[in-house]
């Protein structure tokens, strides 16, 4: 239902031209569309009722993010609602952190936009390989380090930032989460920002002796791995579902092109060389969808088997990376020169689909992780 509403919203109110302009500008999306999405209830669908939402299960994420992919939506739902919001919801101690609860409410309603500053340049997608440090002082904390390619950071009202309060990179213990208000220039926080090739903006965030009050700590010091792992898993889920949504659009466009583009006096779809390739795309996309459904089910079901869930998520991300690359490259090829142009929409979906492989782990990372987790059982 929500998916239909979203699809209708994109068709009626968010034409591709507007999306491209917003994605290439500052802040990298359209604030009025962000509000419109919130009014439609998209944000709320990404949160559990416990946290003030009305969804939040694996299948909720899947449905919304397939629609995000189909609509090529550039608004930072993943960064703000799923990652930052999820981290706040799961890590914060509801009894003691009243201020953080208000922050969470702002993300659920969409009145605020935040982002999760977690990944770093040398982590190789390993979310425990965090080098940024958090040092305890008398009145609070001091952060030092650098966060890489953080989406929608410039426009964020606040950051949820991970740092290591003890241990060494690769340790699960010792990770902590902090809330950094971004309501004005902040001592020691420097952003270097850029647009991205698929739309939206990213920043490298340098933290140099950033002092934070005690209340900035989210949850308990050193105990952030469990909530982080859960939230990052949900992020992987969303990206995988988004990829499937993109593939559906690309498939439909390519099929339509094969039926209508004529060369040698016939539709190019009459050439068997292309028929077989189109057939391959269609069946591979269904495999990718199956992988995503499997991951959604694993997230939605009882979460006692953490390893099985994690493997299902990595299997999905690996599958959409493989299939996504195939679909993107074959679709351009079968369009001939037309697929190479800015004016024809295909290329914009293709760019996003390929770049999903550059967020939260590429296919090789998730394949290795799948193997490693399998050995652990």
């Amino acid at each position, binding site marked *: 239902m929500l998916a239909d509403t979203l699809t209708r919203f994109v068709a009626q109110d968010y034409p591709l031209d507007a999306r491209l302009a917003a994605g290439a500008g500052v802040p990298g999306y359209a604030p009025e569309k962000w509000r419109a999405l919130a009014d439609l209830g998209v944000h709320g669908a990404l949160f559990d009722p416990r946290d003030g939402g009305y969804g939040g299960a694996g299948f909720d994420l899947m449905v919304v993010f397939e629609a995000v992919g189909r609509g090529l939506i550039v608004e930072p739902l993943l960064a703000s609602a799923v990652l930052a919001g999820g981290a706040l919801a799961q890590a914060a101690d509801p009894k003691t952190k009243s201020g953080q609860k208000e922050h969470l409410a702002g993300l659920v309603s969409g009145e605020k936009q935040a982002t999760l500053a977690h990944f770093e340049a040398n*982590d190789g997608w390993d979310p425990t390989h965090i080098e940024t440090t958090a040092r305890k002082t008398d009145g609070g904390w001091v952060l030092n380090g650098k966060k890489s390619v953080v989406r929608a950071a410039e426009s964020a009202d606040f950051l949820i930032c991970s740092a290591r309060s003890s241990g060494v990179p690769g340790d699960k213990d010792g990770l902590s989460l902090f809330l950094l208000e971004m309501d004005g220039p902040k001592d020691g926080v420097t952003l270097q920002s850029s647009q991205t090739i698929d739309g939206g903006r990213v920043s490298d965030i340098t933290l140099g002796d950033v002092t934070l009050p005690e209340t900035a700590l989210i949850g308990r010091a050193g105990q952030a791995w469990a909530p982080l792992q859960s939230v990052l898993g949900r992020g992987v889920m969303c990206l995988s579902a988004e990829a499937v949504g993109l593939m559906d659009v690309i498939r439909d466009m390519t099929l339509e092109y094969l039926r209508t583009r004529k060369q040698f006096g016939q539709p190019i779809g009459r050439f068997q060389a292309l028929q077989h390739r189109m057939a391959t795309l269609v069946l591979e996309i269904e495999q990718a969808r199956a992988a995503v459904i499997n991951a959604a089910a694993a997230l939605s079901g009882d979460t006692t088997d953490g390893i099985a869930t994690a493997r299902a998520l990595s299997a999905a991300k690996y599958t959409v990376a493989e299939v996504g690359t195939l679909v993107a490259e074959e679709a351009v090829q079968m369009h001939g*020169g037309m697929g190479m142009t800015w004016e024809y929409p295909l290329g914009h979906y293709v760019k996003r689909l390929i*770049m999903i492989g550059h*967020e939260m782990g590429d296919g090789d990372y998730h394949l290795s992780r799948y193997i490693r987790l399998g050995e652990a059982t």
Partner: protein
Amino acid sequence: MDLSLSPDERAFQTEVSDWLRHNLDPALADKVRRGQRLTKADMEGWHRTLNGRGWLAPHWPKEYGGTGWSPIQRHIFEEECCRAYAPRVVPFGLSMLAPVLIKYGSEAQKKTWLPRILDGSDWWCQGYSEPGAGSDLASLKMRAVREGDHYILNGQKTWTTLGQYANMIFCLVRTSNEGKPQQGISFLMVDMTTPGVEVRPILLLEGTHEVNDVFFTDVRVPVENLVGEENKGWTYAKYLLTYERTNIAGIGFSMVALEELKQIAADQHRAGRPLAQDPLFAARMARAEIALNNARIANLHILWNAAQGAGNDSGNGASVGVESSMLKIKGTEIRQQIDALKRQALGAYAAPFQPEAFEPGYNGPTLGPDYAAPVARQYFNNRKISIFGGSNEIQKNIISKMMLGL
């Protein structure tokens, strides 16, 4: 075929690399390395430098300004130029039109146009494709009607690479509707400053302006600009395409790209170790390297055989016929594979995209390591190489038909 370089060939290699070191402006090479947009003046300058040394047209017969090099020497020269990050020489006049003029043009045409190609007086572009005639090139519709001493042109060409810089365009035009479509095509040289020619940009998916639409409305072209015979243009067009395809294979560019890939993989770290030591990634790189090496040797082998073949037409054995289809397919697949690996190797840093960083003279900061900026853009842009020059599917059709008799 002897694969090791003879002492003479090694000396030649040294001569070329020495010359490049002294004559290729480091600032220009740096632009090429960083994937920055080259200005028209950059490209013209390099063209002039090569011409000054007499090395601009290695594939031309000596009498017209060629070098008289063996295929091996030409191969060495190309590789050295790539390695030094020399700009790619704009091929339309030099490597496409010129071989056609040399083989099929009149003496007067050769005398007029070849020197102008060499000295850079003319910038040529290629007017083959039309909106309705891509793979099925012979279905082209642009009309040329003879009126006294002129042809009157009406129609449209598209995908015209660097047409925004060109003053001349060679066009395939329809001069007859009799018989098979191939039989009514002629090959015309058109001055783009003639009234009625209009060039409009087409942006590619990564936002660059490389190609154009060119519209022709009652454009008058003197009949002496017809190459060869009227209605025989298809023969010349196909001959030109074998040159174009061999050129697209771009083995030298892939060799440089592979070196860049290795450097990126050594520099990028994944949870404490270089990406190059990641077994999955190392396997991907090794496959690409093996494929490239195979293609390089296969390429040499084909060129070498062509050179041995009797009666090779240009005197230098540059035309390799149907084998050019094989070179094109393999060469482009490998290039695309390496581009994809470079992109993958960057991890999250493939995403930042700063158009201003590709503009000449940009020295500001870019997000991520300095080698990152052009990589994703190049990956997307180079999807074109399996499409143009006759798509790889069309090359396979040619192989099936011409080589395999299927």
